[in-house]
């Protein structure tokens, strides 16, 4: 009998499950799911959201914390990379960064170090596969807003545009700090993530106002974590379990 079993039988208690399990991205782990299909729809919508100008840079933000913007940003980035675009996900949430955790990777160098000129862009970028790379936040700086507002940040985005078809910026929540507002002026389009059943209506309205105030191009909102009521219908098009 294993140690765990012995303890379970000798004392009826549950072992703590490691909660740090890789969160995963649905577009990758469950490509046939309703959620993944929703991301593909979102991808199409983003591609056609602008008639005159191709959207090359996107900021993903939310009104408050824990609405799922990093998950949405990651899924958008991966889903574009699946359509043979070269994509980079950049963690611009220099307050509570999470890209490194979501991909279980080191965060010794990242955006901060590149902006401060401590390392080159090549040294900081981490490669996931041929089409998808990411740049983690790096060390949390004392002055995130100033760093993100700097011309170094603008230059960074421009340089990334030389190498990538699409740049997705994960940003801090709008109502907490000014970071996302600043970044929204540096990108082609901004996506506002709203968590179903959690984000309050006035919070969303205020977030939208904050973006409008700086003249951001809000290309859409994403309603995240919605109860799936259409599963039966979609299952006809391929259920995960049938694989």
């Amino acid at each position, binding site marked *: 009998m294993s140690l*765990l079993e012995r303890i379970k039988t000798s004392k009826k208690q549950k*072992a703590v499950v490691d909660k740090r399990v890789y969160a995963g991205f649905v577009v990758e782990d469950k490509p046939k799911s309703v959620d993944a299909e929703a991301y593909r729809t979102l991808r199409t919508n983003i591609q056609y959201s602008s008639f005159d100008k191709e959207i090359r840079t996107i900021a993903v933000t939310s009104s408050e914390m824990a609405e799922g913007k990093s998950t949405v940003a990651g899924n958008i980035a991966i889903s574009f990379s699946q359509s043979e675009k070269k994509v980079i996900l950049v963690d611009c949430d220099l307050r509570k960064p999470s890209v490194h955790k979501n991909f279980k990777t*080191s965060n010794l160098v990242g955006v901060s170090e590149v902006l401060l000129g401590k390392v080159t862009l090549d040294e900081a970028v981490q490669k996931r596969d041929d089409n998808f790379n990411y740049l983690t936040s790096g060390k949390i700086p004392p002055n995130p807003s100033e760093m993100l507002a700097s011309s170094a940040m603008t230059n960074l985005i421009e340089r990334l545009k030389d190498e990538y078809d699409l740049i997705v910026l994960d940003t801090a929540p709008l109502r907490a700090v000014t970071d996302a507002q600043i970044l929204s002026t540096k990108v082609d389009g901004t996506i506002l993530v709203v968590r179903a059943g959690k984000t309050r209506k006035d919070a969303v309205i205020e977030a939208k106002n904050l973006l409008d105030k700086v003249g951001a191009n809000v290309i859409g909102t994403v309603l995240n974590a919605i109860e799936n009521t259409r599963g039966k219908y979609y299952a006809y098009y391929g259920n995960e379990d049938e694989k």
Partner: protein
Amino acid sequence: MFNGVKGGELMIDIHSHVLPGIDDGSKDMNMTLDMLKQAQKDGVYEIVATPHYLLEYGESTIEEVKILVEQVNQTAHKEGINIRIYSGQEVYFNENIIRDYLEGSIGTINDSRYMMIEFPMHRLDKNIIDVLYEIQVRDIVPIIAHPERYKPFREDPTLINEFIEAGYLFQVNAGSIEGRFGESIKKTASLFLKNNLYNFIGSDAHDIDNRTTGLQKAMNALDEINKECRNINENIFEESSKKLLENSAIEFVGKKVKNKKSIFSFLRM
């Protein structure tokens, strides 16, 4: 099969300052040999030497530790002491842990995936999990030395839950169980033991009279908590310590600490 275990089963001590002249532990080779003899009398066969790695107490690199371990092993063998010493370090938490690791000044226990880390006694740094994240993504599991001794954990034992969630393992000091560091530390150790959240026990021995080698006394003191608690923990320690030296995967089998508020607590407000 799991049944009542009498003393003498615990043979591995994973925390000790037995190496001579390297930190505030053993002064010289003679003291080291005395400590080892004492350990042998107690039934210990294997000891991990974990000298301090922190400013002022000792900054011997892991390579220096390994050389000294080899010397002690040879000398002990000549003296007819049947104990094997393994290399390790008790790394004091600081922001440069990852740098020190990459530079090779600090290392893991017996070159395994497990690194022993000590926290500050009186404060809980907010960045611990973020800093240690960097060693975890390099496949190293932190083993936290004697959490029962840290004041923040004694004041609020539920603070340890965050570290359980982060995937750390924990080691109890034999002296803490015996009550040698005071009631508050003993009480916290008992609570953690009841939750089975320690995978390891260590003597944290520094000398021959005061903080010495040996684990049996602590296990006997555990009987006071209750027999079942002793048996379960003894088994966890034994199995986990073996796996530690083999560098195989070690399961955390404990449970988190519950926020203990009496239903009458509002009366005392």
